[in-house]
Structures are given as structure tokens and as C-alpha cells.
């Protein structure tokens, strides 16, 4: 017998198994190799990867456009949470409709902001720092960009610096000292303390000076082309100058404010003072920078929140924006009887025998085609800045001329003020009736000129509440203070 005894468990049998196993494993091996490839994912079709954004002029420009579109959607810049509305409540501009139960209005109106509650004094904080983050990431992206055309790169750089300074201006004026954030590095930013307001202003001035060199002197279209059809929707060299004039005025550098405002006013081919009804339309001759409404079928969000329908003022909540405010008796009294602005920029409606006066600078809501854009910076302010700066420099006749050019458009005669103090008072009065319901000018002016305690202690008590000098600063978000131990709350909160 030469038969080899083999049973099923013999090596030969096992060898068969091993062969099969190895064969199958060798099939699995490429799988293992392929594992890495199997896990690779590209950026989704809905998004762009950061690396690609700053590769082309068009996508790079879209980043800054994204900031303008976001601002224009409504919150800080316009509409029911806007600085125009809420700072108007905080000051003596508006009266809150008695039927409003929405607490987030009541607390502004009565100067009773509570730092522990969300949306009480601190919603601008997060929003403005979000814009600053967008600007900082654009600056960092542009720094690394190698394939952009130099004209586009320069313009975008300038826009980012300008917007950053614009945001810091409002942060400093609402909150006082604020953290100065100039990069996207969260590991640094997470624990930054508040920088003195002077430092923030200094950085803003540096940014604006750089921006005015970088920015185009012509209006550009959405693709950053110098087109005749371009509207006044992107910041230019003149917007940087205008904001610079305002910043210099606020920090008391009057000579510099004078120069910057003059640079804008001298651009008479671009900027003039049109008649009152044409001041707030799109591409107004007065506009230095406008924001285009982005909600379809609508003109400005400001018109929506201010224009009171025939049914009267209403609470603002839910989908309906409501019309919670009307002009305060104190603001109405501030208008001279002859003032055309009271006829053209204020409207009224009588409901149940009560007459409500409301801001009517923007007159259109759903009318199409859209004919009104939101004005951020306009020429009249530059005249008033220069007038004030000139008073402080003792150039009284020149100051008078600037002030009167604003008064003339409103159908008023030359001012009778002659002394330095009376001129300053007339300019403040003129700012009140010229810039009402716009960008919180009144609230900031009261604070800047140290009149806030004097005025508001009376007004607040008439609003049924009590003024405290601490209330001129809005509270920092309590969340941020908890997350950053170096951040200190404003006193009184």
C-alpha cells in the first residue's frame, strides 16, 4: 500500500484552506490599500474651499460683497433690530407704542437693559465682531493670494480695512473700551482684554488712512469693474475719508477732521446736496456709501419699521415686522416751524384721534421697481462735521457757511448764532433734526458732547424709568464675560 494516509485535517487539506484564505485575503489587500482613497472627500458642491476663494478676482470680491449683503439683510444696519431704531429708543428720538410687549424694545426705551438677558444691549457686539472676523479672514486670505489682479487685491484690501474701522467705530461708541481684534487666531482672541478706546481709534485711523489710499475713487460694480452703471454700493476712497472725518471729530482732532471732510465735500462732481425728496433715493447725489436692499420685493427695511400703516402702530413679533415707534414729542418740538424737513422727512397718521408722527426719509416699502437704498454715509453729515471742526478751530465764518448750507436746503434762514458756544449748540440742534432716525447719531452725539446725563435724566423719567449715568454704555454680553475672564463688564450691570 502506497496510499498515504491523509485525513481531512491533514496538512494537505489545510493547505487548500490556506490557499483559499490567502486568495481572498489578497483580494482584501487592495481594499486596505484603497482605504485611504475611499475616504477622500472633495469640498461639497455647495461650498468653496478657502484655498479657492482667493484664487480668482470674482470669488474674492464675493467675500466683501457677502458682508454688505449680510448687513443689508437687516439687523445692525437696518430694520427691526437696527441701530437707527434701538439707539433712537435709548435717546430722546422715539416714543415706544404703548401696545408693545416685546421686551427687547421696552428695555432700550426705558434704559433698563439687563446684561443677563439675551438681546439686551449686546446683539451688536456679536454681529460687529462677526463682520470684523470676516474682514480679518479676508485680509489674511488676500495676504496669501498670489493670482489676483493687483487692482482687485488693492480694492478688496481697502474695503476690508474700511469695514473693520466702521465696525470698531460703533463698538467703541456703544460699549466703550473693547477688545481690539485684528486676526482670526481664536487662540489669541479668546482671552483678549478690553483695549482703551483710544487704542481702538488709533487702529481705525491707521486702517482708514491705508484704506483711502487703497480704495478706488470711482464707484465699482459687483465684479470690481469701473463701470458707468456702478451704483454707490461699495466703499470708495471718499467713504474712507468721510468716516475718517467722523472719527477725527469724535476724538477731537479737529484740524484733521476738517481736512478729511473737505476732501469729500470738494468732490462736487460726485456729491451735492439734492432737494429733500431726492436725498434718500438710490444713487442719490448726496450718498457717499449706500446699502442695496436684498429682500425681494422690498425697498429699505428702515421704511418697513418706521412707516406706520393706517391701522396705527403695532407690536413687533413673529413674521410681521410691526411698527413699534413714532417720533417723540421732544424731537417734534426741535423742528422749527418753517423746517421743510418736518414736511418732507416726517409723515403723520391719525388713528383713534391720536396723531402719530413717523420718520419719512424712506418713503417706499413694497413698491417696485426698488427706488430707495439705505444711506450709510452722506454729504450733509460731512458739512456738519466740518462746521463743528471749524468752530473748535475758531474758524467761525467758515463754520457758519457750512451750517447754513444745510439749513438752506431745509428752507431755513441763516443761523443767528454767532458765539462759539451758541454755534456749537446750533450745530448739535442741526444734527438732531438733520440726522434723526439715522444710525443712532443722536444717541452718539449726546454722549460725545457730554450732554447725555443732562438730557436723559429728564427724558428717561418722562418715559417712566430712572436714568443712571452708567446706562449710556450698553452692557457686554454676559456669555462673553463668562468665556473670557479678562473681559470686565461695564459698571452698573
Amino acid at each position, binding site marked *: *500500500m*502506497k*496510499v498515504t494516509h491523509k485525513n481531512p485535517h491533514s496538512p494537505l487539506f489545510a493547505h*487548500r*484552506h490556506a490557499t*483559499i*484564505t490567502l486568495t481572498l485575503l489578497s483580494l*482584501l489587500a487592495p481594499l*486596505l490599500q*484603497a*482605504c485611504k482613497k*475611499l*475616504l477622500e*472627500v472633495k*469640498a*461639497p458642491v*455647495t*461650498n*468653496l*474651499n*478657502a484655498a479657492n476663494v482667493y484664487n480668482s478676482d470674482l470669488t474674492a470680491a464675493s*467675500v466683501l*460683497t457677502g*458682508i454688505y*449683503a449680510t448687513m443689508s439683510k437687516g439687523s445692525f444696519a437696518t430694520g427691526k433690530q437696527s441701530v437707527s431704531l434701538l439707539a433712537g429708543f435709548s435717546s430722546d428720538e422715539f416714543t415706544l*407704542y*404703548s401696545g408693545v*410687549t416685546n*421686551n427687547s424694545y421696552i428695555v432700550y426705551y426705558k434704559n433698563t437693559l*439687563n446684561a*443677563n*438677558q439675551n438681546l439686551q444691549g449686546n446683539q451688536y457686539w456679536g454681529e460687529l*465682531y462677526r463682520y470684523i*472676523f*470676516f474682514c480679518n*479672514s479676508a485680509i489674511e486670505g488676500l495676504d496669501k493670494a498670489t493670482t489676483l489682479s493687483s487692482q482687485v487685491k488693492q480694492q478688496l484690501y481697502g474695503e476690508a480695512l474700511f469695514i473693520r474701522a466702521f465696525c470698531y467705530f460703533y463698538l467703541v461708541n456703544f460699549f466703550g473700551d473693547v*477688545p481690539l481684534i485684528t486676526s*482670526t487666531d*481664536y487662540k489669541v*482672541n479668546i482671552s483678549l482684554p478690553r483695549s482703551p478706546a483710544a487704542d481702538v481709534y488709533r487702529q481705525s485711523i491707521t486702517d482708514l488712512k491705508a484704506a483711502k489710499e487703497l480704495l478706488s475713487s470711482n464707484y465699482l460694480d459687483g*465684479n470690481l469693474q469701473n463701470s458707468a452703471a456702478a*451704483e454707490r454700493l*461699495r466703499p470708495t476712497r471718499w467713504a474712507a475719508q468721510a468716516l475718517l472725518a467722523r472719527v477725527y471729530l469724535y476724538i477731537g482732532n479737529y484740524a484733521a477732521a476738517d481736512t478729511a471732510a473737505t476732501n469729500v465735500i470738494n468732490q462736487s462732481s460726485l456729491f451735492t446736496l439734492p432737494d429733500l425728496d431726492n436725498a434718500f433715493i438710490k444713487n442719490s447725489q448726496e450718498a457717499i456709501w449706500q446699502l*442695496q*436692499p*436684498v*429682500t*425681494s*420685493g422690498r425697498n429699505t427695511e428702515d421704511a418697513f419699521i418706521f412707516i406706520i*400703516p*393706517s*391701522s*396705527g402702530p*403695532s*407690536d413687533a413679533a413673529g413674521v410681521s415686522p410691526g411698527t413699534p415707534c413714532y417720533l417723540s414729542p421732544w424731537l417734534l418740538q426741535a423742528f422749527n416751524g418753517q423746517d421743510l424737513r418736518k414736511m418732507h422727512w416726517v409723515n403723520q397718521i391719525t388713528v383713534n384721534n391720536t396723531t402719530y408722527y413717523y420718520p419719512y426719509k424712506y418713503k417706499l416699502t*413694497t413698491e417696485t421697481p426698488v427706488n430707495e437704498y439705505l444711506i450709510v454715509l452722506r454729504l450733509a453729515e460731512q458739512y456738519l462735521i466740518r462746521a463743528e471742526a471749524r468752530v473748535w478751530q475758531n474758524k467761525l465764518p467758515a463754520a457758519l457757511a457750512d451750517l447754513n448750507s444745510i439749513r438752506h436746503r431745509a428752507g431755513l434762514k441763516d443761523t443767528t448764532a454767532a458765539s462759539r458756544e451758541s454755534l456749537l449748540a446750533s450745530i448739535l440742534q442741526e444734527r438732531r433734526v438733520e440726522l434723526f432716525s439715522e444710525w443712532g447719531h443722536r444717541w452718539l452725539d449726546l454722549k460725545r458732547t457730554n450732554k447725555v446725563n443732562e438730557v436723559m435724566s429728564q427724558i428717561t423719567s418722562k418715559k417712566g424709568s430712572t436714568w443712571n449715568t452708567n446706562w449710556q454704555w450698553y452692557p457686554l454680553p454676559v*456669555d*462673553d464675560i*463668562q*468665556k473670557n475672564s479678562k473681559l470686565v463688564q461695564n459698571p452698573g450691570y
Partner: protein
Amino acid sequence: MLLPLRSPLIPRLLLVLFLSLICLYAKAYTGSQNDHPVTLNGNTTLRAVFKAIKQQTGFAVMYSTAATALNQDEKMTVNFKDTPLDDVLAYLLRGKDLEWKYSDDVLVIHKKETLPAEKKMVTDSTVTPAMITGKITDAAGAALPGVTVQVKGTSQGTTTNENGSFSLPKVSIGQTLLLSMIGYETQAIPVKGKSILAQLRLAISSLDETQVIAYGTTTQRLSTGNIATIQAKDIEKQPVNNPLLALQGRVPGLFITQANGLPGSGITVRIQGQNSINNGNSPLYIVDGVPYPYELPGTGISAILGNSGENANGAPTGSGNTLSLINPADIESITVLKDADATSIYGSRAANGAVLITTKKGVAGKMVVDVNLQQGWGKVTRKLKMLNTPQYVEMRREAFKNDGITPTLDNAPDLLLWDTTLYTDWQKTLIGNTAHFTNLQAGLSGGTAVVQYLVRGTFQRETTPFPGNFADEREGLHFNLNTASANQKFHFQLSGNYLVDNNQLPNADFTSAAIGLEPNAPPVYTHDGTLNWMLDLTGKSTFNNPLAELLNTYQNKTSNLISSASFSYQLAEGLSFRSNFGYNNIQSTIILLNPLMAIQPEQRSFSQRSATYGNRRNSSWIMEPQLTYEKKIGQGSLNLLLGGTVQQSFNNSETIFGSGYNSDLVLENMAAATSLMAYGTLASTYKYTALYSRINYNWRDKYIINLSGRRDGSSRFGARNRFSNFGAVGAAWIFTEEPLLKETSGFLSYGKLRASYGTTGSDQINDYTFLNLYNQVFVGVPYQGVNGLLPNGLVNPYLEWETTRKLQLGTDLGFLNDRILLNATYARNRSSNQLLNLPLPSVTGRPSILQNLPATVQNTSWEFTLHTINIETRQIHWSSNVNLTLPRNKLVAYPGLAASTQADFLVIGQPLSVVKTYHLLGVDPVTGDYTVADAMGKPTTTPDYIKDRTVLSSPQPRFYGGVQNSFTYKGFQLDFLFQFVKQVGTNALFYNGISASPGVSSFFQPGNQPISVLDRWQKPGDNAAIQRYSTATSPAFYNAISSNAAYTDASFIRLKNIAVSWQLPESWTQQKHFSCRIYLQAENLLTITHYKGLDPENQTVVALPPLKMLTAGIQLKL
């Protein structure tokens, strides 16, 4: 396949599969010739020749001595040298009336048959003398079709046919057959002859019921892990619209809450607690081997459904729960895998446990047609007691008086314009209707030993307790096909579920209006039948009519395909190759209409009618090739599994907002809009791949050890940390198998100690978080005609897995012949390397950044189950199931917590759900305002939010469980299940969640309050529970809702399910060849609780509570 497949890969794979199937059949039937060379010479015996054939050719020679009259010991002289096998056989069997044939590696010698050759071809080749046959019956002697017959220690097996008969080739004497069938005790029969007759007893012990586990099955007797299984018989008793709801109260360690009582609502599932601080805590769902998403990407317009407990970072919150797209009646079993031993093989996906859903399969036997019709009625379980009109009016007047304000038409239309004598019970009007439930199921199934099939169809319609015609309708089809080659070496299975759901609901839940609306609010319709807005003199609406929401309709149409195919082939003794393929596709189209008529009249001139169209798709495919090897080593058996997974999932969604329609009637037509705006577009891809292995060694059913390991990769992480390893070890000692105990212990019939330890991971974060992406800015009119782009957030390329280490110790004890079964498990799960969305101060520009932080969360739990058979006679059967879970969740470590941004939300040593609250001292008798204690315990109305919240509340269960009893008497059956939960919840009564403090009422803040507000402060010196009424919400009230009084006991005992059925006596129906069962089923019938809100489960007054449902039905089997 019922839907067009997106990926070209799947059809190709299926094609390959079918081709290989054909090849294998071809091989099996063409083995009639064989040229294998054989070499042998000398004097020998027939036995030795056959042995040599086996060794040299691999063919085992089989024959029946009786039939062939062959004598193994017949001496013969042979001289073969590379002689073809056929020639060898022809020589050996010369002159005998015998012939042979080949079947795989078996060579069968049999008597020459006189039948024609064609006939022979179709004869089942398994009917050979070399195989064993048998018949299996139940205790009464009736044939049992569908019994699984398996040769122990091998993958060889079959199922019995309609006569209860089976046949198996190649079974040698001495091997053991395992006979198993759900509901019957598994029996082991040693093979002693060629035919077997066995009786299966009804399963007394649930120890031996089959449990589905990851890539296989086991029984409770032999498992080393912590596994719980719910069978179809319990799922079928519950008239639920989501199979997950059938698990409530039944599984220890599993806590399920329902977001609301609407069909398709969100459902939160937690297995052994919350492991992750910020990321996904939902288990992995596997349906027929295919991973299944529990939620679709959000469109932002499905808020009414509620979410399923996850709020994915950054993405729109998903809504509803997709498990509701699986018909509960199609489910054979749901297995919940809890410990590392059971889940580790799922690697990075199963840190939160896994839920395996297995759908019904065909059973061999004659065709059975099954028709089931069920009709039911649902109601809200109870009402909240609210102020009536005089009480309400008194509250409002007092509020004005307290504030010193004169009511005017502007600030008090409810007092001056509305009829202050009118009373409406808004809960009755808005959530008090009866919801109707109709369910029709029809199915047929049957098959033979080699092919089994099942087809089932379902129709279900469920309405809501809301006014209006809202209903959820679904139609589904489920099929399953099982086939095997005649020699049982090749198995193939195909199954599919397709369900179409049409859910029509109002846009908003009426519950908040039902609670909040003023009792004297005007009638909802005017005399002319239009919506009543109760205009004031100026034409302004004063009544926010809730029925406007009837016009704002929400339609969600979803189709769901789950398909899977798997095949296995036995390569050699004990070695099999198998692979699963799966494809899922869920598509959902949502239309939300906002007609102008739903807007208050004075707003219409400057409002627009609009419609929102949402589309959501999730599709995924998976392929899982595997090798399994089984071998006896020593006295034990070894099981090896080696496999790989490739999975890809695609999520797409977009939402389109249309406006500018010229009529309310055309809103569904997107083309009728003048402006369309797309937003919320999502297109994400998730890729996942893994290699895994499992080794199981079972030594004489006494010592069992289970090792598993896996290497995993997920595309959710940056390239640096994409791969990771996971592993687990589980061991069990069945000490009652020790000879000493086996002989001595009559009382203790079964005893097992088990332990497991291992790691699993969690990659439940959003896709692409490691990429720095820029998103489109969505606006109605592009700024300067250009779409803006903005960065999505801060990115972290170093993200890694969250890792959970799970330790479980347990014992399973059976007493009195396993009539009493007790399980106790201690589990300790520790999750570390937490993927935390580190909240950032807003100065950074972003709300948060995702990071791995060295925090550790520990979940410990004690789980107990007790299963007893209390009475077991021929006619009466009574059994009970009790389960109890004592969970404890704790943040164990968080280096640097105090300085971190999470310090406000987390406390070391406390559960993750901890809430820091003020200590409410009560109402100041002087001012009538709520006062809270500051950190020093002194009363204050202006506490410091950071320092003064000193009381810790923790809304989460302390213990929970269920008690189930099952009685059978002749044809009657009664089952009931009580669920109990001891927990702290939100105090809905104190703060009704809709309106602000008592006394406030406005158009958008309806002002009714629970009657408990009557105990209020009225004048100095009053000691009251509720602060003074006011027309404005005061800061003191905000302090109170952030106080400990905002939390209360929300424990409850609920009669979760009760089911009664009566089987018509066979004597009535047998002649007509059908059986009939009539039944009543109820859900949430009774709730015992001190909780004062609407419902202690969802603890809210803004969402419909779970309904109580009563149904009646009839089931016919033909």
C-alpha cells in the same frame, strides 16, 4: 429594485452576483463525468479503495449498504496508474446493477434507476441514500414548517418544508443536529441513523431564542455581551407609528422619549446614557445589515415634527425620525447592543450602542396568506387646568391696577373689545379631537427547503387631534427571497422595503395656542364663515386667530427604499465566504404654504404670500465581504470572522423660498412665483471604510471567549487622524456546566458570569468640519447682482475620534429549569477625547470651534431583568417580564474646566444635564416680586447670573423600567406593559412656556395661565406662591424661571400597552382552512403622575403630548 439606482456600482455588483450564481448551479449539475486520476495497486479491500479515492480526488464515496449490497471488506486486486476515476468505478462496480454520480465532493453510488434521464435531472439531488432525512413536529404532533436544521459546528443546514420534513446531505453519524425555531426551544439531536423524528417544545426558556448580533446570531445562553432582543410578537401588539416606540419600557438601559404625539415625530433614543457632551448621542441603526440614518438633513421648515435629540453643530437641525418609515409589522426582531463586546465590531460608529432591525423572512411551508385590519382612536391623555373667563379677566384687571396703567383699546383689547363673558375651552377646540388610526396589512409567505419567499403590503392612515383635515398616510411593500443551492453550500438572500409616506400637518402645533389663548378670545369664525381677526376700530387685528395655521399647511412626502442582498458560499468544510450589499434611498419633498389669507388683514397690503419647498435626500450604499471559519479544536469550537466594510452616504438638501404669487390657489406651483430663492443647499458625502475580525472560542458550552478588533477610517476627520483601531474582549463562564454544579444543583438550572471590556468610537459630527469652507450668502436679491461668499467658521484639521471605553460585568441565572431567569448587569462606559464645540466669546467672530478636549464622561448603570413563568399548564400560561435600570451619568474629569468656557454648563461630578439655577426664596411680601437667594443666601431681586446660581438641578431619569405580564388561556391572550420613570423635569406649570408672567397678554403673547397662578400676591403682607400680576414681564420673573422652581418631579407610571386577543376555536374554522384572531390593543391608556403639565414624557406645552390610542382589529390566516 424599485427605484433607479444612483450608483452604477450596485447594478454591476448584482450582475456579478447573479452570474456567479448561475456558474455555481452549472457546476452542481454537470458533475456527471470525472477524469480525476487514481493510482493504486495490490491486494486490498473495497473500503481501502474508497479511502484512496477520497485522498487522491477529494471525493468521499457514499452508498447505502442495504440498497447496493456492497461489501466493504470484499477483497480485490487492483492495478490503477493515473486511471480516470470513472474508469476506476466502472471496474469496481462491474457486473453490479449500480451506477454513480457526483455532487460537489461527494460521490454517491446507488442502484441503477429505470427512470428516464431527464426526470433524473429534475429530481432533487439531495434525495440520495447518503443523506439523512427527518420530520419535525410540535408537542401535539403537528408538522412544523420552517424549523432551522443545522449541523452543529458547521454552516451546513436547511429548513423544514410544509410537511415538517427536511433532508440534509453528508451528515455523518455522531454529528449533532441543532433544531431551532423562534418560539420553540432549540434542541440538539445526535445523528444515530439516517432518519430523525423530533418534537420541538414551545420555548419555555428564552435563553435559547435566537438573537441577532453584529454579523451573526447567538442565543442568550451563549452570548458574552449585553444584548436585548424584542421579537415581532411584542412589536405587533403595539399600535405605534414608529417601531422605536415599541421598545419603550421593554429594554433595560434604553431610554426613549417622543418629541410629540404627531405621526412621524422626532424620537430621542439613548442607550446607557449620554456619552458625548456636545456631539451625537444616538445609536447606530442597522436594518437588515445596512446602516440606516435616523434623521434626514434639515430644511428648516419641518419644525412641527420635532427633532430626534441631536442638534448637529452648525447644520439645520434635522426633524422627525426616519425609523417611522419602516413598517413595525414587517419587523421580525429588534436587537439592542449595549456593551463593547457587542458593538465594538461596528467601530467608530457604535459608541452609543447599536440597534439592529431584522425584517421578516419567508418560512418554508405551504403558502400562508395573512390579512390584518386594525382600526383605532387616539386622544390627548389629559388637559391642563387653565383659568376660566372670570378668573382670567380678574387677573388682567388686577395686572393693570398693580401697574397703575389704564386699560385702553391698544393695550387691552381682551378686556375692552372682546366679550368678557365668552368662554372657550381651547384645549377642547384645538387639541381635543379624536385621531383616527387605520391599519391594513396583507402578506403571503411560503417556500420549500431551497426557496422561501415573503411579500407583505401595508396601508396606514393616522389623523391628528387638531381641527382640520390632517392625516399621515403610508403605503409600504416588503419582500424577502431566500434561496440556497441544493447542497446548501450557496445561500442567497434578497430583501427590500419600500414605503411611501404622505404626512399632511398644519405648519404649527396647536398645543401652544390651546394652552395660551385667552378663555374669552373671540369665536374663530365670523358670521360669514371667514377667519375672525376681531378687528378694532382702526382695522387692526386684536386676535391672533389660531386657525390661520389651518391655511399654512405642511406636506411632507417621503419615499424610503431599503434594499439588501447577501450571499454566502461554503468554500470548504467550515470555511465560508459571504458578502452583504445594501442600498438605501430616502427622499423627502416638503411644501409649506403661507397664503395671504393666513396673515392678519391689515398686514396683507405689505405682506406677500409665499411657499417654501424643501427637498431632502439621503442615499447610502454598503458592501461588506466576509470570511468565516469554523473548526473544532480540542473540545471546543472556534469561530473566526474576517471582514471589511466600504460605506458611502450622500446627503442632499435644498430649500427654495418662493414669493410674489398672485393667488393663494397657486402656491404649490413653483412656476407661479415671481421670485424664487434657494437656500440651505447641502450636498455632503460621508465615506467610511474598515477591516475587522472576530474570534470566538466556545469550550464545551462552558467557557466562551470573544475577541473582536477593527481598523476604521472616516472622512469626517482631517487627513492626519483619519484611521483608528478599536477592540473588545468578552468572556463568559457558564458555571452550571461544571460537573460539580451540574450534578448537585437542582434549583439553579443555569448560571453564567460574563464580562466584557473594549473601545468604540464616535464620529457623529458634521461632514467637512475640517475643511475651511465658504458658504453662499442667501438673500432675495443678490447684492450688486453677485452672490456673496462668507467663511463658514473656524476649522480644526486635527480632529479625532471620541473614544468610549466600555466595561460590563453581568450574570445570568436560571432557576427551576429556567422558569425563572434573572439577569443583572453592571455597565461603566467612559467617553473621553470629547469632540467639543468649544464655545468662543463672540469677539472671535464665531460662536464655537470643534476640538478634542481631554474631558471624560462616565455612564454607569445597573440593569436588571427578571423573566418568570408563573403558570404553565396545558391551557393556562402566565409569564412576567420585569426590567429596571439605575443609570448614573457623571462628568468625571475635565482638566481646566473652571477656566474653560464650559464652566457655566458643566460641573465635575454631576450629570451632563445639570442646570445651575438660582434658589427661589418666594415672593417678597412687601413688593410682590419674586426674590432669589444670592451666593451668600441673602434675598435679592438682582442676582449675579454667574455667582448666584448655586442650586443644581438635573432633569434626567433616576431610574426607569417596565413590568410586562402575559396571560394565555385557551384562545385568549392578555398582555400588558407598565412603564415607569423616576425623573426630574421642567416645570411646565410654573412657566407655561408660551406667555410671559401672569397678567401679560398681547397679540403675540396669548395670556392665559394655569389655575395655580391664582395663589398670587395682591397687597403688601401677602404670602403667596406667585408674584403680583403685571402687564409686563419683570426681571424678577426672569430670575424665577432660571431658578430651581423651574424644575419639578416628572416621574410617572404609564400603562404603556395593553393587548387582548381571542383566537377563534379551531373547531369553528378548521374546515374552512383558515384561522381568525380578534384583538383590542391600547397604547398610553393610563398615566399615573404628580406632574402638573400636559405630559411628563415630553414635558412641554408647546408640542402635542403622546396620544393614548385604542384599537380593535381582526387577523385572518388562510
